[in-house]
């Protein structure tokens, strides 16, 4: 059984792990499961099995139940994600403004479908319904940046920018 003390020790060796700090801070608050999962995902880019084990031990919820929660919410990933997360909007406004053409440009360009990651690990593509920027539709979000009024050409440029940023070690 994992003890709080061990996590703390672990944490010292870990360069910086928000997730473990959060776990360490846990004081038995109700409803902590989802925020802890969010923190794990933010730290590792996905939810590793070890994180589920840690949460299960500390919070006292069986792993099976945690998996149930993870699979219910579309935000959570059990597999590592690409370096850049592209979220393409297919909400009503974007759909009406030809978001399918944007999606096609991205899938052609990256050779992946929605919910897949490129072989080089640079991009993961997700389709979402509405990024809340409908007046600038069609819209995509790359990591925490939102880009609006897109055309297939602009999307290509954007992808190139992110590729180059990676090439330059950025």
């Amino acid at each position, binding site marked *: 059984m994992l003890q709080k003390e061990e996590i703390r020790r672990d944490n010292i060796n870990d360069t910086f792990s928000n997730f473990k700090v959060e776990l360490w801070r846990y004081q038995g608050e109700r*409803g902590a499961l*989802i925020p802890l999962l969010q923190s794990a995902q933010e730290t590792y880019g996905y939810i590793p099995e070890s994180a589920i084990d840690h949460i299960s031990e500390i919070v006292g919820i069986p792993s099976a139940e945690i998996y149930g929660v993870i699979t219910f*919410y579309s935000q959570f990933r059990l597999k590592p994600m690409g370096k850049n997360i592209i979220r393409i909007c297919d909400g*009503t406004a974007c759909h*009406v403004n030809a978001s399918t053409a944007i999606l096609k440009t991205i899938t052609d360009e990256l050779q992946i479908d929605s919910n897949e990651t490129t072989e080089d690990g640079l991009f993961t593509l997700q389709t979402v319904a*509405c990024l809340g920027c*409908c*007046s600038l539709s069609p819209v995509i979000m790359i990591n925490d940046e939102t880009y609006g009024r897109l055309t297939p050409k602009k999307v290509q440029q954007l992808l190139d920018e992110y590729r180059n940023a990676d090439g330059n070690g950025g």
Partner: protein
Amino acid sequence: MKTIKVGLGTCGVSAGAQKTYEAIKNEIELQNIQAVLKETGCNGMCYREPLVEVTDEQKNSFVYGEVTPEKAKTIMNSHVLADKPVAEWLVQSTRPSEDDTFFKKQNRIVLRNCGIIDPNSITEYVATGGYEAIQKVLNGYTPEQVIDVITRSGLRGRGGGGFLSGVKWKFCRDATGDRKYIICNADEGDPGAFMDRSTLESDPHSVLEGMMICAYAIGAEEGYIYARAEYPKAVARLKHSIREALARGFLGKNIFGSPVNFSVKIKEGAGAFVCGEETALIASIEGKRGMPRFRPPFPANKGLWGKPTNINNVETYANVPWIIMNGPEAFAAFGTDNSKGTKVFALAGKIQRGGLAEVPMGITINEIVFDIGGGIKEGKKFKAVQMGGPSGGCIPASMGDLQIDYQQINQTGAIMGSGGLVVMDESTCMVDMAKFFLRFTQDESCGKCTFCRIGTKRMLEVLERITDGNGKEGDIELLRHLAYEIKNNTICGLGQTAPNPVLTTLKYFPEEYEAHIREKRCPAHSCSALLTYSIKADACKGCMACAKACPAEAITGEKKKAHEINTAVCIKCGKCLETCKFNAVIKN
């Protein structure tokens, strides 16, 4: 000294406002300009983003639209330094502008501070009279009196259902429980709506103040804001605002020096539309799968952790301080008999001026689309508006004179919804629209009720075969039958309203369904399976551009001679149509 404000809401930033802001900041530092640079939220003119407002020494305001970093430099040099406003880029000022009609029919209660104050500054909120309403309540109203004021104002919940807020508050006040909670629903799941995001980003304190007043009225000491995962900026601003309010003693123990305690926590959603439904939302805050449960018991009696809980939408709360300060009569002076006050609509789709408009209830659809929204893009024809998202429906242009209030909208088969108003033109296929929403609800169904889980899937299959050109006689009846069963055999609003987009398009656009089924034709030229591409021989110059662009090598022809498309090979990607400079490619 002049003040310069840049709109840095999510929309603004995605239109490039951050770069504009940096350019102005640079210019100020480089030239050592004596001016104050501030950030603000969204004033609603999203279609003109990035927006920059210059306020001069006489307090005259000049709003510039579509300000790129280069334009910003010019504005700094000409207007800020030399007092010569750049007239051609102005969208709102003392001078008349074509954009003035955008504001003319609006009445701003919820959006009163949006795009005006700096959302990161509690001082600015206070300076506009913020947090006076809560103090007025703490100093002179009993909880019952607060509830009475809200009831008399006629305020209805803005999250979609339209339930009278005062009545709901009373249920929760009267419920017995040692602890009570209030929740602000900021899940904003309707794809095509962004009023709540913009309000939270542009004026977070007004929502917090509304929650405080509600908490006092109900007797709750803890509040939660449940915000969508896709809204990082709104969450960041809220967190900041809560810290500011705590530091001033507006939140926490003994707020404003009164005996009342109130604290607020933020919970971020994890990407599930159904969590906008109140019982699912509560389950999600409790850390569980967000499954709706059968009601009653209602959250007012048995909500978060089994305790009496009041849940309202962002916009509902944002109205509350204004009502307290201006009185219920002032609020009820706007609107119609059964729908009081204003409503914020998010205008999007094929409309010229996409953005946020707050209008009095009772305004007509045409007034919103044409007077405020400036009509349809690219001079096309107005076909329909979609209201209420996946729970709502399409109202045809022929009913444009319909007054927007809860009763009249419900009679069309659509719903008021949370405020998404997506405008469609002649190139939007109504069957495709119905399919779009059904795919959405099918994806988002929590799976608890068989009819919601399987029924929507069957409906989707029927719609898919219709748009693929494989529709059969009897499909329309089958859709109606499934719709009826789903409506009557599901426990939450998601399932109960899921058939609405299909039912309204069937009601107002039956001929489009028939054209797809009988003639294998899509009147809007939108469903790709029913389209064919061809080249008009007399218009084709034989430039070969399309043949090069075609990914399927479906186009043949010699240089300078008319080209042809082999429809058996064509994958209908549309590249040739895009490529041809001579309009020789046609689709039908």
